[in-house]
């Protein structure tokens, strides 16, 4: 590797007040995030050094709230993570690019024409009204995705909206928001899904190191989620797990139990059924995360069905059951009503049975009804 490049990255680090020591330490934590031993830190260091040659990136903003961009851009102090992310030469990103209009669109078409870029998709692909629920520069979102996806080296879907439609896809979804792989399943081989709302920037760093620098796709599950990030439940790594096991629960906000940071299970925490590594990686430059800041997990990492529909109401243990004519009903209500109806039915049946004298033993048929009927119709002897 050229000495110049190596110096280049350390100049970049020095300019941001990051020592080489801090940088190597950070690479150690990236190794941990990737499930590698710290032994791999030097390899990651050299990979990042080598990767200082910028990788062109196209960042598509589809049907979105820009929350994922916010999550990524909220850097109050320049840190090492932002330097790794700086390795992405974002040639096109509507939210932050200086260029506008034709000039901006040219940046996109040129990068796509050159090939060898990373495509990052944020937001849902809008399919409603023939795709016209999202038009950018005269084209539908789906057309832009199709143009950009073909020549991309890898596609990173950041946030639940790009993964499966997210909030935009929640019922009734009139605008037809869908995930990238929902509309283009043929991209499965080179797509990495990073659900949650918003995406955790640390995971993007890990993917940049893993894919772009170490040159391989991570191990992924059937929904294209990296298993190291989405392989265990929040509940299993939760710092409040001890309170759960002890039966110490917050039952209402504004109580002493909340101050004591007891378990939020009864407040509808979706931690037991949500598989992300939020408790260990945390958010906002590793400062805190939902449960640590006092909110139950709302299950934004859920895949297979829309996470909003599967997790709402957010402060309930289970989601509502949609019954025809009644709308959303609590599962506990459904169960209790069914149980009570059965008990009431049996009571009425018991009273009716007693009234008709059945309880002391009913008369027994001497011949099966079917036999009797069919013998008669065949002209049998009785």
């Amino acid at each position, binding site marked *: 590797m050229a000495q110049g490049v190596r110096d280049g990255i350390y100049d970049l680090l020095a300019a941001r007040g990051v020592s080489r020591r801090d940088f190597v330490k950070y690479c150690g934590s990236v190794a941990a995030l990737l499930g590698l031993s710290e032994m791999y830190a030097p390899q990651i260091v050299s990979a990042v050094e080598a990767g200082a040659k910028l990788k062109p990136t196209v960042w598509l903003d589809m049907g979105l709230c820009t929350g994922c961009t916010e999550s990524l851009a909220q850097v109050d102090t320049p840190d090492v993570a932002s330097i790794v992310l700086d390795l992405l030469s974002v040639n096109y990103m509507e939210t932050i690019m200086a260029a506008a209009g034709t000039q901006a669109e040219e940046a996109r078409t040129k990068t796509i024409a050159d090939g060898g870029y990373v495509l990052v998709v944020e937001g849902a692909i809008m399919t409603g009204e023939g795709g016209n629920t999202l038009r950018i520069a005269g084209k539908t979102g789906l057309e832009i995705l199709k143009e950009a996806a073909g020549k991309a080296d890898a596609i990173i879907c950041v946030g639940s909206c790009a993964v499966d439609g997210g909030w935009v896809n929640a019922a009734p979804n009139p605008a037809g928001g869908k995930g990238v792989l929902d509309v283009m399943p043929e991209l499965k081989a080179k797509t990495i899904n990073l659900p949650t709302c918003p995406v955790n920037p640390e995971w993007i760093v890990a993917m940049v190191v893993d894919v772009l620098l170490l040159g391989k796709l991570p191990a992924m599950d059937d929904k294209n989620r990296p298993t190291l990030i989405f392989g265990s439940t929040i509940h*299993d790594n939760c710092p409040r797990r001890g309170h759960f096991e002890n*039966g110490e629960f917050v039952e209402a906000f504004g109580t002493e139990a909340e101050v004591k940071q007891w378990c939020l299970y009864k407040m509808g925490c979706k931690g037991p059924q949500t598989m992300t590594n939020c408790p260990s990686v945390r958010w906002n430059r590793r400062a805190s995360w939902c449960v640590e800041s006092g909110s139950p997990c709302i299950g934004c990492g859920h895949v*297979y069905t829309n996470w909003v529909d*599967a997790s709402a109401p957010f402060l309930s243990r289970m989601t509502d059951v949609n019954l025809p004519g009644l709308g959303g009903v609590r599962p506990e209500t459904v*169960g209790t009503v069914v149980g009570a109806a059965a*008990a009431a039915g049996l009571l009425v049946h*018991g009273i009716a*049975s007693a009234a008709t004298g059945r*309880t002391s033993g009913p008369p027994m048929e001497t011949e099966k009804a079917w036999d009797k009927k069919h013998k008669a119709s065949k002209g049998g002897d009785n």
Partner: protein
Amino acid sequence: MSQHAHYRAAHPLIFVFTHYVNLISMIGLAFTGFFIHYPFFVWSMGLARSIHFMLMFILIINLTARIILSFWVKDALLLGSNVVDTDIKNWLPQKENKHQFLETVKYYLFLRKEHVISGKYGSLQKTAYLATIPITYAMAYTGFALYGPAQHWALAPFFNAGTAAVGGLMAMRMIHYFGMWIIIVFTMVHAYLANIHGIAPTKIMFAWVETKPEGH
């Protein structure tokens, strides 16, 4: 007609035992299951979960043993009879059951006056009892699937595939929850219909005390 006879020949001691195991584990599973769903008093979640697991294994082993035993143990196929045959014959559909299912339903809906002719188990009863087998195994499967994400054991893919098929862990949790209500309603109806003509069935199944037909 009066009360049916209930002889030990129809309910061998081993099945009285498996029935007890079923009842006790189901009550325990329902109680700890409700507690895990929403802890309604201060108790150890770990203990509730351990008891829930232990009872599940007992229930599943008991059910499996009960099914295997039905091919070996001989009992009476008719109430009030001492003539025995292999127990599985009580369960398999028989040609005599044909046309009796709807008649049985009609009887319980007061659409006919006379009780229907049947073997030890009526066709409605047979159907309901047989249905408990897949339901019980399904409860164990959905329970394992809910616990699956915490486990990295060899069978995890078998359960995770089910979770993916039903639409994730929330859907799986609700299936497990409503499955419990199905079992509760079954148990209520079962206890009621078994004893509607007197408590002789309870006497034989719990105390193994026979009831002879009147006049004997």
